[in-house]
């Protein structure tokens, strides 16, 4: 049985589908634009008002600044301690992610390629570590750092950061290594590469894409970490950015311009990294939940 349409009916049908497509497109773009505005607006508002003084903010918060007061940024950087915190954050983040990248890929190599006693236990220990709240170990960690004389030092932050970054990092690199064919190593062994060198010469270079994912993800996480910095750091010359920002908020509460500038200075590095590596970061953060092992 076939249905025949005359020309008029065909045109009506065509119009109907066209209208329906247009309606769907309209809904698609208006919904997404609306949501995008909700996301962007607060950031934009902070940006615009970071370049004004209090009077301008109160009189006309919506307008673009008449004079661009970059002095707000200078004030936040020097008087507000954001500059020194910025450098502290850079140091703590870089040292932490370098250690995480190396240590996690070594462990991932064992867990993906070698057979050894206790493998299952160790794997589940790390896997479980992905889901434990950092806050539960806060009190004993502080006690431990006190005994090691690491309270109010950057190493006192770096060691816990590395420990808490390991589970997810090992998980990501291990999954990647499992996907590398074993024939690659077998060929290397035939060529005379010693078992100890297999990691450095073959597996580590081959799994670099996953190591990069780990490093970029951990840069974002560690740059933004607040709770440990709040408890383990005491003096402002050691503060990392989130910690300095929180103190800054308390003392500059009435100076909106510099406060906004400080917020942006803390947020911009991760935003830039995200814009460059957006796909990698999004997939990395979602990895623990969508991968079925």
């Amino acid at each position, binding site marked *: 049985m076939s249905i025949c349409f005359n020309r008029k009916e065909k045109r009506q049908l065509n119009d109907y589908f066209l209208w329906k497509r247009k309606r769907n497109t309209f809904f*698609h773009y208006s*919904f*997404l634009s609306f949501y*995008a505005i*909700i*996301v*962007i607006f*607060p*950031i934009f*508002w*902070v940006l615009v008002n970071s370049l004004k003084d209090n009077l301008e903010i109160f009189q006309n918060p919506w307008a673009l600044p008449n004079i661009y007061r970059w002095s707000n940024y200078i004030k936040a950087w020097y008087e507000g301690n954001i500059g020194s915190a910025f450098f502290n954050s850079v140091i703590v983040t870089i040292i932490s992610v370098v250690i995480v990248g*190396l*240590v996690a890929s*070594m*462990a991932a*190599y*064992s867990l993906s390629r*070698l*057979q*050894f006693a206790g493998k299952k236990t*160790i794997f589940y220990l790390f*896997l479980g570590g992905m*889901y434990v*709240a*950092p*806050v*539960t*170990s*806060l*009190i*004993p960690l*502080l*006690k*431990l750092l006190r005994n090691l004389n690491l309270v109010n030092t950057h190493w006192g932050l770096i*060691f816990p950061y590395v*420990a*808490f970054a390991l589970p997810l990092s090992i998980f990501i690199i291990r999954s990647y290594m499992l996907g590398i064919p074993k024939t690659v190593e077998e060929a290397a062994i035939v060529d005379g590469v010693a078992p*100890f060198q297999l990691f450095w010469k073959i597996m580590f270079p081959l799994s670099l894409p996953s190591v990069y994912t780990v490093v970029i993800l951990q840069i974002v996480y560690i740059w933004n970490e*607040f*709770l440990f910095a*709040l408890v383990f750091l005491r003096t402002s010359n050691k503060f990392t950015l*989130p910690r300095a*920002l*929180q103190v800054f*908020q308390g003392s500059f509460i009435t100076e909106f311009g510099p*406060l906004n500038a400080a*917020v942006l200075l*803390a*947020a911009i590095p*991760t*935003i830039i990294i*995200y*814009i460059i590596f*957006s796909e990698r970061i999004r*997939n990395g*953060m*979602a990895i623990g*939940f*969508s991968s*079925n092992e």
Partner: protein
Amino acid sequence: MRKKNNVVAYFFLFPALIMFVLFFIYPNLEVIYLSLFKWAGISPKKTFIGFYNFQVLFSDLDFLKAVFNTLMIAFQSMVVQVPMALILAILLNKKMKGNGTFSTIVFLPMVISLVAVGIIWRWLYDPEYGAINLILGKIGLQGLQHAWLGDVNTAFLSVLATINWVYIGFYTVIFMSALKGISPEIFEAAKVDGFNEFQTTLRIRIPMLKETIGVMFIMCISGSFKSFDLIWVMTGGGQVNSTEIVTTYLYRMAFRRMESGYASAISVTIFLICLVLIALQLKLMKITAQE
């Protein structure tokens, strides 16, 4: 060939293991021991009191209020964030111009420091100069203007709105990758059967994503037991504990009131809740793997 290779394996595991055991496992075990003492934290003097801390804890109304608030955040995430994320993911997975940019924007809040987010939103909610009250004034809704974070009745809702702003993008990304796993033929078939978008979502997408949604719900609970930064910066727990959650209560007990033994008991409780959730989550994910 399944040769055991203990020496080499432990050589490569050693650095990770020593860090993990010392700074992760050991503290998480010691906290159980510490929870059995009355202890001020700074002083070396500890008094053994058995499970007394836990007895007090479960009749501590402030703690129970904090647990209630924490669970409300989790519940709210399930009914607001997850459905919203599903809608966004469906739209973003379509082959339409601009979707790449939209995906980037939707996830953006996830990479900003929560302290910065807290300060930004505190200012948006400011009763006099905040954008929200200014907008309400402009569109003639002066009646709704409000001290959003200062009022006990709206403080919690205001914090929830900010939490949604941050995390909807996260769930969207998970949904986007899960949706890509459904074979396109199923959608073709649905189209032939005359399903519209809404019916397709209800009858095909949601049933196919059952496990993903299950894992997400668990994430909502465990996430709410982990969150600290936002609430600490935005309200510090709020007036009459209106926004107090378990973690902020723990912090206050340990570092403001110097009740470290008692705070350790709270830690143990959170740890046990997390353990149950991990078990559930791993079980769910395994079900997915077997099918």
